[in-house]
């Protein structure tokens, strides 16, 4: 134990394995706070309320005390498991972060950036290759003033810029102060000052709505060094790309888990946290620090200086963009759901805390409302659905489930508050789509025999969203769960388990022996129930939106699927569980991280940025909660694949001839 300066308070030193990170904390602070202080990520969906049971740690050495919890089994308690948010250290500790709680904070950059790049290439074909970025460098060779033409430096510069960039211009005092010395070489001697004309400068012009601002001047020609940072601030992941504004090419890409996860896994949890004293600042700082981490890494890898990055274009849901800008978020949570700012003007990035060129601009994509954010605007942009005559449906299958329907004439959107059921976090054996995550499942009868594949072909550790959907779809098609999602013990055979504590059943997909893991990898009844509710919310939202316009799914010519699933989602499985409507597979198009793709398109083309504002103005938001039929549709959709099987003919066919007649079995009393 170490003594503080006053020598009264005793700090506890906590070491976290396997990374050996350390933190010293005051008595009374929880182990979760220690982990946050040490920069160790521990899953805490509920933000430290003790209600999610995800911040599992193993105490190897030392003493702790805390509340008992139903989230740990007796066997786990014997192994030293605790919930980090519920226990307080009483001594120095050595604590192990078990694999299921561990999250390498930096996403495998190689694979993920490649994945994100693939979408960019596909988009490139559709979007004009000619760049007209939001910030541009202009190299100028100005004529020297003469007695015949004694025009002031500032006017001289503006005139020259205006010839290249038509439209109103503005320039701040700070730049004006530097101007004379940038245009001339000053030879200052004690006896006399001599101003020698040079006139060769590069001006950076940033677009502030209709007005161009001369952000900065550099001596000589630097016009080939012009970069922008595209950001997608997701609830779960922050993704950043450095884009060459001259060529339009992405120089480097990086992604990172949103550090705000430690304060709450979903947006409501974080908004609640922001209401605590200092909470809002902590959340703002967390996301700004994430951006800084990504930026630092990108600049190093791309060999670019901070001053060469002149703009940031940020996309994300309304709550995340509010945290990024340090705006009040509480209003997002409460009726009538009016956010602080929906269409932020371009501001200095430095004002938000983002360290690019000190006078560089931050563009935040316009948001439709509290629950349809800049990521949706970006998704519409990236899909191009707003330019097409065909009627398209955009499903952003993330935590918030935004849905947009429309074409070049109309756009309607709703938010289906899907919940985190796909994201691995609230799933018993859930994890994010990283190494060891089960991403594909096949079940064969009789047996049942199960085969799985994992990301990177590593030993299985848990299920990512894709794996969860496939597991449930396969269990359904194999008759292991009924149309209500209830596990049938007889059909599950030897893979049927009764939960340790909650007494609810589970299906063993990979047993501990098969996995080389200390626990069975199971899909529990609660996982299935959550998944059914989540997919029901999304399907019912899309159904309501489609019907509100007098259409049916058959009228939808293209369905764009955006979200963390990327291009690894089994369409047949999604239709089997009724997440996606039963349409020909060729109508489905995965557009991956469309929030980022849209941000990049807006960065590279001023007209597309304008389009984002037009899109925002055109989108009609539909509040599902005031639609009396939504609840009916939701209940109808909370069934596999749906109560109305006629809407899912391909699933009906797959189920046909597979029904198992009732067999009378006497249960023991």
């Amino acid at each position, binding site marked *: 134990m170490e003594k503080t300066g006053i020598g009264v308070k005793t700090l506890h030193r906590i070491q976290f394995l396997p990374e050996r990170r350390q933190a010293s904390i005051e008595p009374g602070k929880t182990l979760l706070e220690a982990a946050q202080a040490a920069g160790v990520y521990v899953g805490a969906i509920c933000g430290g309320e003790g209600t999610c049971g995800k911040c599992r740690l193993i105490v190897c050495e030392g003493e702790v005390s805390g509340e008992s919890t139903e989230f740990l089994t007796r066997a786990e308690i014997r192994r030293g498991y605790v919930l980090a948010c519920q226990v307080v250290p009483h001594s120095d500790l050595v604590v192990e972060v078990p694999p299921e709680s561990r999250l390498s904070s930096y996403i495998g950059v190689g694979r993920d950036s490649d994945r994100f790049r693939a979408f960019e290439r596909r988009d490139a074909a559709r979007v004009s290759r000619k760049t007209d970025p939001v910030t541009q460098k202009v190299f100028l060779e100005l004529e020297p003033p003469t007695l015949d033409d004694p025009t002031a430096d500032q006017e001289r510069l503006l005139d020259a810029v205006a010839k290249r960039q038509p439209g109103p211009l503005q320039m701040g005092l700070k730049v004006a102060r530097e101007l004379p010395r940038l245009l001339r070489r000053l030879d200052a001697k004690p006896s006399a000052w001599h101003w020698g004309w040079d006139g060769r400068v590069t001006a950076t012009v940033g677009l502030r709505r209709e007005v161009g601002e001369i952000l900065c001047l550099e001596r000589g020609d630097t016009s080939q060094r012009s970069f922008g940072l595209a950001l997608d601030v997701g609830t779960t992941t922050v993704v950043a790309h450095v884009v060459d504004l001259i060529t339009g090419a992405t120089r480097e890409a990086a992604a990172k888990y949103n550090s705000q996860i430690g304060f709450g896994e979903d947006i409501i949890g974080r908004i609640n946290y922001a209401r605590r004293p200092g909470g809002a600042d902590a959340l703002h700082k967390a996301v700004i620090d994430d951006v800084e981490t990504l930026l630092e890494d990108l600049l190093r890898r791309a060999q670019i200086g901070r001053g060469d990055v002149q703009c940031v274009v940020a996309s994300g849901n309304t709550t995340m963009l509010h945290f990024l800008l340090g705006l009040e978020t509480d209003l997002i949570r409460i009726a009538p759901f009016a956010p602080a700012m929906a269409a932020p003007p371009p501001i200095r990035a430095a004002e938000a805390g983002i360290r690019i060129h000190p006078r560089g601009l931050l563009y935040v994509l316009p948001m439709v409302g509290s629950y349809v954010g800049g990521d949706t605007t970006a998704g519409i942009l990236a899909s191009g659905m707003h330019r097409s005559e065909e009627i398209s449906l955009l499903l952003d299958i993330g935590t918030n489930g935004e849905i947009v329907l429309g074409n070049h004439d109309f756009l309607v959107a709703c938010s289906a508050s899907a919940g985190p059921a796909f994201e691995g976090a609230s799933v018993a054996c859930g994890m994010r789509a990283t190494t060891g995550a089960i991403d594909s499942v096949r079940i064969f009868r009789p047996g049942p025999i199960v085969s799985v594949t994992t990301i990177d072909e590593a030993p299985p550790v848990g299920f990512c969203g894709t794996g969860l959907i496939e597991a449930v779809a396969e269990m359904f098609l194999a008759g292991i769960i*009924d*149309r*209500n999602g*209830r596990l*049938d013990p007889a059909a599950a055979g030897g893979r049927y388990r009764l939960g340790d504590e909650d007494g609810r059943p589970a299906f063993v997909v990979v047993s501990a022996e098969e996995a080389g893991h200390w626990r069975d990898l199971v899909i529990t009844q609660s996982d299935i129930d959550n998944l059914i509710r989540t997919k029901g919310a999304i399907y019912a939202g899309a159904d309501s939106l489609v019907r509100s316009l007098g259409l049916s799914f058959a009228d939808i010519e293209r369905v764009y699927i955006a979200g963390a699933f990327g291009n690894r989602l089994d369409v047949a499985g999604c239709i089997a569980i009724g997440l996606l409507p039963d349409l020909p597979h060729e109508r489905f198009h995965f557009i991956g991280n469309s929030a980022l793709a849209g941000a990049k398109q807006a960065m590279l083309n001023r007209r597309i940025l304008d389009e984002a504002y037009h899109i925002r103005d055109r989108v009609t938001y539909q509040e599902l909660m005031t639609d009396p039929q939504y609840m*009916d549709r939701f*209940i*109808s959709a909370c*069934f596999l694949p749906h*109560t109305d*099987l006629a809407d899912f003919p391909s699933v009906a066919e797959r189920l046909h001839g597979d*029904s*198992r*007649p*009732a*067999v*009378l*079995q*006497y*249960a*023991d*009393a």
Partner: protein
Amino acid sequence: MPFPDFRQKWTGRINPVTLGATPAEGGTRGRTVTLGGETGIPFLNFDGETPHSPALGLDVLDQAPVGWPGPLQEAYGDVWSDPAAWARRARQLGADLINLRLLSIHPDEGDRPPEAAVETVQAVLEAVDLPLVVWGCDVPEKDQAVMPKVAEAAQGENCLLGAATEGDYRTLAAAAQAYGHKLIALAPCDINRSKQVNILISDTGYPLTDLVIYPTTASLGYGMEWIYSILERGRLAALSGDRLMAQPVILDVGYEAWRSKEARSDDEAAPDWGPIALRGPAWEAATAAALIQGGADLLVLRHPRALETVRRAVTALAAA
């Protein structure tokens, strides 16, 4: 101006479901009761047919009830410790069916074994020749042990067994199918959930046409209008051709009405409400009379005067 023709053309029909079996049909019942068969909205005889008026059953418990108010005690107190005697009383009072509840098998209510339940059912079958509705105790593990035995013991009698739910339907559906009984599908207050339970049961191979649905019940003053609207919506869906809602409906009016404070409060506690001897039966009858117009095919009642009053209402409506 000629009077416009407001008659509705319906394409659907409520499934006719017959309960009980006479000796000619392999059972021992003196008569059978058929539910459903409607081709229009209840009692709108110009729209469609109502071939079978709503059937009225009386409750019989397998043990002496606890906490039943005075008017019910007066009607059944002398017989209610003997289910067979109670059933005979119900027949004398004019019930169309006996609604037998196996309460004593409940783990907290005596936890009697399957054999005891079988004995009770056999005794009631011998005592009266009316068709029988038999309910378990709503504890899945116990019902799964008891109901197959009961179904087996009553084989051939074409009883109505309750209740299959979304979480517990396999055993009961299999038992009903194996021994030739009809089945109650229970889904509280929601048409979609009701359809889902019907689908789950039908996926086991049990015919949709042998189901009777139970959307739960609420009495006058306690949400009756909600159940009424569910009944009506279900009925309209069925008449429009929805096979999944074409099942006759059973409602448990007596149980719900006698939970209300209007039925239970004695005269001292409610001096302005009129005598308890009339209040409870009136509450029960008023609830039943309203719900039969939404589309109920089998009403389970308790008090003899309620039975009498509802019978009069049904006769009057059917003749109109």
